[in-house]
């Protein structure tokens, strides 16, 4: 029976809450995110620390992509984790914890962007260049030839720069959808926008990028309108 012999993480539900069949009793089980979240609700800082350790990189990465500054990303990710801890009572353990946490993080970034002065191109390009370097390196691994390598790196840099140049209203939904791979529903919740608006903005952001990159000669011309 699932309820027997469980200890610290017995309050959690969802997949992984019970010991899988076939596992030896002496084998140490890894608590699921939902289990850790439920235990953290009781004030167990060690359990929450485990969750932070699991997700701090993703949270920091999201904040950095949205904010473009290391310092701001640190502040936002810290704020997001604190906000998550304070809101643990609202977390539904049947839902994926990472989606819930990333929604909070995106929301923190949006709040910070609203407080911040208008974003400068230099700051945005810092993120773009960093991303483009990594994207180029990743593409190089897949592209054997030096010509393809150069082309791929150049295209990645152009895309990163074009994304960085978008208005926040379009850049944020696009980054959350394509880079963070968040669902439209979660993006709408994080940005506090209607679902239809989020979809429309992502589509328009893509169209703008396509136009820009086509004009710059990186893409073959197609019909946009």
């Amino acid at each position, binding site marked *: 029976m699932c309820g027997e012999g469980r200890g610290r993480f017995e309050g959690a539900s969802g997949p992984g809450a019970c010991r899988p069949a076939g596992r030896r009793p002496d084998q140490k089980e890894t608590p699921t995110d939902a289990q850790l979240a439920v235990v953290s609700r009781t*004030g167990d*800082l060690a359990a*929450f*620390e485990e969750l*932070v*350790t699991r997700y*701090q*990189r*993703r949270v*920091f*990465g999201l904040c*950095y*992509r949205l904010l473009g500054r*290391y310092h701001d990303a*640190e502040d936002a*990710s*810290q704020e997001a*984790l*604190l906000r998550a*801890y304070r809101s643990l009572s609202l977390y539904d353990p049947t839902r994926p914890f990472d989606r819930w946490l990333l929604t909070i993080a995106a929301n923190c970034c949006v709040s910070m962007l609203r407080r911040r002065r208008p974003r400068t191109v230099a700051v945005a390009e810092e*993120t*773009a260049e*960093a*991303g*483009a370097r*990594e*994207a180029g390196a*990743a*593409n190089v691994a897949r592209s054997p030839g030096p010509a393809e390598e150069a082309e791929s790196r150049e*295209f*990645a840099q152009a*895309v*990163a720069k074009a*994304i960085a140049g978008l208005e926040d209203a379009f850049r944020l939904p*696009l980054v959350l959808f*394509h*880079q*963070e*791979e968040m669902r*439209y529903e979660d993006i709408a919740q994080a940005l506090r926008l209607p679902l239809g608006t989020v*979809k429309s903005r*992502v*589509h328009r952001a*893509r169209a703008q*990028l*396509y136009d820009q*990159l*086509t004009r710059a000669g990186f*893409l*073959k*011309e*197609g*019909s*946009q*309108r």
Partner: protein
Amino acid sequence: MTCTEVEALIHKELDGELLAGEADALREHVGTCPRCAGLRTGLHKLAATARGLAVSPTSTPDRARRVVERVTRSLRRRRQLRLALVASLAVAAGLLLLVLSTWPGAPTAKPVPPVGTPNLVQRPATGQRAPSPADFVSLSLDEGLTWVQDAWQRTQEEVTGLAQAASLPEEGAVSEGEGSWWEEVSATGDALREITREVSDRILPTEPTGPQASQRSQSRRPPLYETSDEQQNV
């Protein structure tokens, strides 16, 4: 199907929301329209590149670790502040209770006779001033009345006991006169009754109305121990 409609389908395809029938229509259109085919290829390449642009946070492990430390430190500090707040409130509540318990006129668990209250067991000396009813108004109504009633009860019991121990005659058999036992006992009793009335009148917020109230006001008498001269003149 127009190119505009196809463009919408391409976006739906990138969103992962394309239905089976729509997928067929899209494939059919791009097979015959090079511009839409170019758009589709370009947007897919764009999306794939954007996905690959993700900045790897693993390049900043120190920063990430610092975030964890700051979060846990902040949480611990919050907890300490909460504990400090609870402790402060507990101390404040204790001080408040202490102040209330020592406040003049504050209710006490056991009524303490005010200063100047006569020792009712002792016989008042002839001509000695009796306690003023004002001495009792610092007590609450219930406490004052209870104290007076208890004192009166104790006085009666002790006087009766003393009289029996001294083999004194019954009340009616004793000639009334200044300095006799029963005169003083009676005077003390009257004073206590008067004090009870005074305490009730001063503390009770409203006077009862009706025939009982008028009867009560009529039955009020001046205190017997108001002055020793008055007593001597009686």
